[in-house]
């Protein structure tokens, strides 16, 4: 018996949590001086330390600590006055030491929150902790059908990524979002990503793996105090997948509970193609990582003045920016959210700074440009048109040199890299015909060609003028200001 998502939500309250791993954009690795740049040939960005060779020792990258503190502050966390790294012990071929240097019960940052804007409302997602750890190497699994370990004959391991600094951000469980749970989860990841990008601490590209998400989901019957068993879903590789994974788990768990079963605490794997999850490893027998303080590293006790100087270097945080722009541009929460979801905040703000009105800037970026970005499968910020260009186009329309239709053609020209807006206007001859005398000749021709229409107009049916306007627009190949043409026609016929 399949339970639909809607049915599930009638009976159960979803609770979700997210664990996000962020690859820091430092120049070198967490504990050694190997470069972090992508695309190097296998095992060429390694040294005794990140290879875990016997006798090697880790030394902490100061900038990684700084970036982590920055993230913690931006998430409203308290920064530990003293904390240690810990060893997380388990055997796996992509881990050179068979332990990972991480943090256990003494994370660098704790107890913060991120206010997430969804559906016009603000949801405060609690942040339990932010800590630092090192990444593992990467394996190719050879011989199986899917490239995963199931069915593989052997694996090939590259340690270039072993030791890359990772920040782990763990939310508190988020209850009370009801049917919006999937959207809130997605919005959290999106807005977290944007925050991290604004801090300049990471590329945060989910497609490239510099931002990774595991989603925890559980259900409890409405009215119950007791939270349900949660599952952890991995392989969630895009924002859309975050939403789909939560949705899929809610339905699946509801089905299990409805049929009298018990949700098993386990790790599940999300499949992009089906949008569902399958069972991975059972977490019933919890892995004992035998954590203990890392003896090769001394404690980290960030001096308060260092933390303060990092705080002072923070850019305007999203919540503050949101308040400022909503006020400056008179936007509702929904309108602001639309901008944010389109990833257009920066470009719109820059366009306004270049002289356009907020309304115009929003219109172009959320309309024509968003559509084109979507078609090309890229972010609006990646389009080959600048905020200055858009502001100029907006200026030309406001001045009457361009109408909307012409403006769209100018945009097309700029995107096709034909030049600046002015250059495109000139090259394509896209200026509005503003010379009345040129218009008048086209108007006289239209009048002469449509005597019955003229008669109707004179009779009082002024809407009929539209036909004449259309004819003039056609004759001028759209380069007339329609309103002006109508005025001139009426003048002519009166």
């Amino acid at each position, binding site marked *: 018996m399949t339970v639909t998502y809607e049915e599930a939500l009638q009976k159960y309250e979803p609770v979700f949590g997210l664990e996000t791993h962020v690859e820091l954009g430092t120049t070198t690795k967490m504990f050694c001086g190997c470069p972090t740049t992508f695309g190097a040939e296998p095992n060429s960005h*390694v040294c005794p330390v990140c290879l875990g060779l016997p006798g090697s020792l880790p030394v902490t990258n*100061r900038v990684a600590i700084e970036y982590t503190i920055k993230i913690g502050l931006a998430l409203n966390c308290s920064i530990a006055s003293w904390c240690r790294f810990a060893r997380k012990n388990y055997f796996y*071929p*992509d881990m050179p030491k068979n332990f990972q240097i991480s943090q256990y019960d003494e994370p660098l940052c704790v107890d913060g929150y991120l206010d997430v804007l969804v559906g016009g409302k603000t949801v405060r997602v609690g942040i339990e902790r932010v800590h630092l750890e090192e990444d593992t190497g990467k394996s190719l699994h050879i011989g199986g059908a899917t490239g995963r*370990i199931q069915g593989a004959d052997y*694996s090939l391991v*590259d340690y270039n990524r072993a030791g890359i600094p990772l920040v782990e951000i763990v939310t508190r469980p988020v209850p009370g979002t009801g049917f919006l749970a999937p959207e809130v989860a997605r919005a959290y990841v999106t807005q977290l990503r944007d925050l991290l990008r604004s801090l300049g601490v990471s590329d945060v590209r989910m497609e490239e793996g510099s931002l990774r998400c595991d989603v925890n989901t559980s259900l409890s019957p409405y009215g119950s105090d007791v939270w349900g068993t949660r599952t952890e879903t991995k392989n969630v590789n895009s924002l859309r997948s975050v939403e789909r994974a939560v949705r899929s788990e809610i339905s699946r768990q509801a089905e299990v509970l409805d049929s009298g079963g018990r949700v098993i605490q386990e790790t599940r794997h999300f499949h992009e193609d089906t949008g569902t999850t399958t069972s991975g490893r059972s977490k019933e027998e919890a892995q004992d990582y035998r954590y203990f303080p890392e003896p090769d590293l*001394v404690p980290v006790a960030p001096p308060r003045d260092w933390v303060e100087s990092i705080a002072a270097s923070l850019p305007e945080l999203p919540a503050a920016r949101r308040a400022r722009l909503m006020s400056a541009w008179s936007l509702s929460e929904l309108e602001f959210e639309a901008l944010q979801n389109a990833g257009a905040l920066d470009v719109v703000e820059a366009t306004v700074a270049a002289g356009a009105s907020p309304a115009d800037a929003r219109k172009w970026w959320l309309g024509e440009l968003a559509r084109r970005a979507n078609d090309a499968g890229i972010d609006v910020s990646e389009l080959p048109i600048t905020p200055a260009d858009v502001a100029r186009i907006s200026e030309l329309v406001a001045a009457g040199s361009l109408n909307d239709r012409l403006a769209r053609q100018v945009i097309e020209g700029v995107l096709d890299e034909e030049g600046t807006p002015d250059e495109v206007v000139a090259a394509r001859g896209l200026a509005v015909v503003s010379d009345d005398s040129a218009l008048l000749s086209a108007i006289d021709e239209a009048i002469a060609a449509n005597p019955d229409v003229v008669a109707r107009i004179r009779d009082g049916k002024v809407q009929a003028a539209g036909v004449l306007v259309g004819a003039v627009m056609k004759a001028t190949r759209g380069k007339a200001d329609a309103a002006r043409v109508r005025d001139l026609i009426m003048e002519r016929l009166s």
Partner: protein
Amino acid sequence: MSITRDEVAHLARLSRLALSDEELDHLAPQLGQIISAVAQVQEVAADGIPPTSHATGLTNVFRDDEPAPCLTPEEALSGAPEVELQRFKVPRILAEEP
């Protein structure tokens, strides 16, 4: 305080040691003896005594985010039992990463 043979077998699995039955028979009582002896630490009254994980008292030892020379791939792979495509070739892995 003793430790059962089964518990020792479990420890061996956790430690990735494929002990033979003879070894288990031999090591289990020895381990039991040692554990009894080291359990002596529990006699010590240590309420309020902080644990020492680092004897030097050092804190905040960092390095700058500056590149340092790497090993060449040949050096990195020099001890490897098997190499393919300039990577460490390892036998098939059964379980997903924890």
